[in-house]
């Protein structure tokens, strides 16, 4: 039995003045997550991640479709589901005017347990915030807040953990720490569904679903998604990066070119090789040219899939 199943879920919102315009937040979404799996929902803002999380944690009703968590239906068995899941919603949602300790104790009590009982589960995380245990939650840094929220979501040893954008707005170092923590949680046999807009975090998941404006672009392991990238890919540099972009765009043998950190990624048309590209750039007055064939990144796949689905 899968830990989470999503079948043809659709959700629409009314928006705008007089609520006349309809926004389709989720459009016929289907996928499943296995027991104990670390599953990433990767997509930018507006993709529908939060709506999906709310449907799965039973606080929102879908317009169409079914979903189940640990075999329980999200509509009919919502009470049972609410007992066994841990949820960390999008914005930091703990009590700012309560201390770290008070927050933790409160959530433990709500779930009919005590901090002591499941302490080993949160131990690794808690020792990082323990020095601040008497500080009000509102006075913690972004990274600390996320760790506290995670502790509160774990304190009752949930079967399934829902983390909605836990690393958004947090600096890269804290982000890495957080993912190390999540990876260690896997050892506890907790199913974890994480959403994130950061493509590089996709690689830390066992399986991912790429989602954009309410539609799933692909569901698979990160490795397989990259394999399915059906083009060759070059990374290109030169001494004049701004001019380089112009040159690339003017070349009709290039399918696509876009910035990608220190390099431009170039998708050549069939038959256009790296040496061809080097020649072209030399002719256009570029120096210090670097052109190498590379394997695509998840982000390359995402961009490709976005363009395919447009």
């Amino acid at each position: 039995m899968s830990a989470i199943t999503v079948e043809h879920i659709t959700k629409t919102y009314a928006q705008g003045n007089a609520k006349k315009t309809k926004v389709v937040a989720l459009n016929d979404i289907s996928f499943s997550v296995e027991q104990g799996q670390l599953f990433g929902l990767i997509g930018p803002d507006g993709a529908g991640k939060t709506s999906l999380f709310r449907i799965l944690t039973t606080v929102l009703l879908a317009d169409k479709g079914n979903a189940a968590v640990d075999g329980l239906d999200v509509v009919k068995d919502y009470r049972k589901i609410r007992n066994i899941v841990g949820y960390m919603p999008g914005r930091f949602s703990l009590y700012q005017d309560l201390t770290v300790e008070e927050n933790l104790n409160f959530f433990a009590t709500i779930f009919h347990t005590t901090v002591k009982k499941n302490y080993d589960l949160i131990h690794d995380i808690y020792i990082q915030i323990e020095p601040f245990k008497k500080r009000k939650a509102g006075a913690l840094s972004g990274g600390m807040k996320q760790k506290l929220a995670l502790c509160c979501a774990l304190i009752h040893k949930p079967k399934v953990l829902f983390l909605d954008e836990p690393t958004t707005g947090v600096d890269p170092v804290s982000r890495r720490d957080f993912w190390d923590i999540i990876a260690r949680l896997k050892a506890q046999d907790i199913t974890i569904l994480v959403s994130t807009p950061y493509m590089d975090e996709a690689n830390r998941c066992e399986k991912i679903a790429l989602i954009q404006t309410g539609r799933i672009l692909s569901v698979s392991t990160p490795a397989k998604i990259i394999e399915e990238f059906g083009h060759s890919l070059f990374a290109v540099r030169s001494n004049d990066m701004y001019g380089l972009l112009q040159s690339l765009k003017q070349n009709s043998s290039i399918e696509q070119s876009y910035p990608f950190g220190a390099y431009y990624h170039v998708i050549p048309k069939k038959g256009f090789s790296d040496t061809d590209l080097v020649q072209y750039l030399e002719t256009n007055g570029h120096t210090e040219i670097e052109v190498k064939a590379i394997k695509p990144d998840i982000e390359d796949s995402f961009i490709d899939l976005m363009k395919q689905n447009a």
Partner: protein
Amino acid sequence: MKQLFSFVRKEFYHIFRDKRTMIMLLGMPVIQLILFGFAVTNEIRNSSIAILDKSNDIATQKITERFRASKYFNVKEVLHSESDIQNAFRSGKVKMVVVFPQNFNNDLSHTNSAQIQLIADASDLNTATTLINYASNIIMEYQSTILDADIPYRINTNIRMLYNPQLRSAYDFVPGVMGLILMLISAMMTSVAIVKEKELGTMEILLVSPIKPFLIIISKVIPYLILSLINILSVLLLSVFLLNVPVAGSVWLLMGESTLFIITSLSLGITISTVTQSQQAAMLISLMGLMLPTILLSGFIFPIDNLPYLLRLLSNIVPVRWYIGIVRSVMIKGTGFGTVMNETIILIGFTVVFILISLRRFKIRLE
């Protein structure tokens, strides 16, 4: 149960740690104190009065002596004509004028009865009444000195209260203030506390937990119930022991009715929270939708009978209007349950309606 306790404790943390809320909660009783203090006065000494003596005979002089000698009065002016009276009051120099008519002693001797007119500034009805009482006593005392077994001398006092045709007493404000404050604390603060949870996003986490949603609401309500009861108790204690304003009727009845009104207000607060999404909206509705009608339509300031027909009708749906009526009856007039039974039933009715609306609108999910 442990859950409920943990919840209620959390709510108290929120209340005590929020400076604004604390100021309001602590400020209320202080405001009440001040209003009470100024509204109600007890012993009055050295009040300035004036005397208009049209007879200037031995009787009037003797009575005037007594006035001068009294610790309650300070005879500030001796007036010479009727026209002086208005000026004396208007200038605020005196609070009462004693008027002896012409031929006072003559009338007394020959007809065995005479009149003294006592004119008081009734804009402060309490003080005026007290002064009138003191003055009447003085006159009675004089009367008893000239009384003879055979001759029933009678000095009648003719009393005029100026500037307060309806004889509105400061006492009248007290029930209104009590009702207003109870309602603000219970309705407004409860609705804000519930909506705050929604607004901050913590409601989401609470919903995804074993705790039953209605328990969340109950736990929000309990702290304010407790605080309101404490408030009422302190007001009553203050009024009885510090200000010597007794509760004319049964204290238990008063507390019982107050508790009922608190519950009515709390359910109103819950109802408001089901229709608003933001704390600001909750506050706005509470202030505009509750406080204004309370002040204008409940009989707090303007007597209901004086309101135009339409507004009078409207005042019937303002819950606090009924509570004010009950408090006036029980606390000030000292009536029993029978008199206020109708109002009590109406308040219960309001409570039931609010709770039903809340239950219907209550959401176990977001949206």
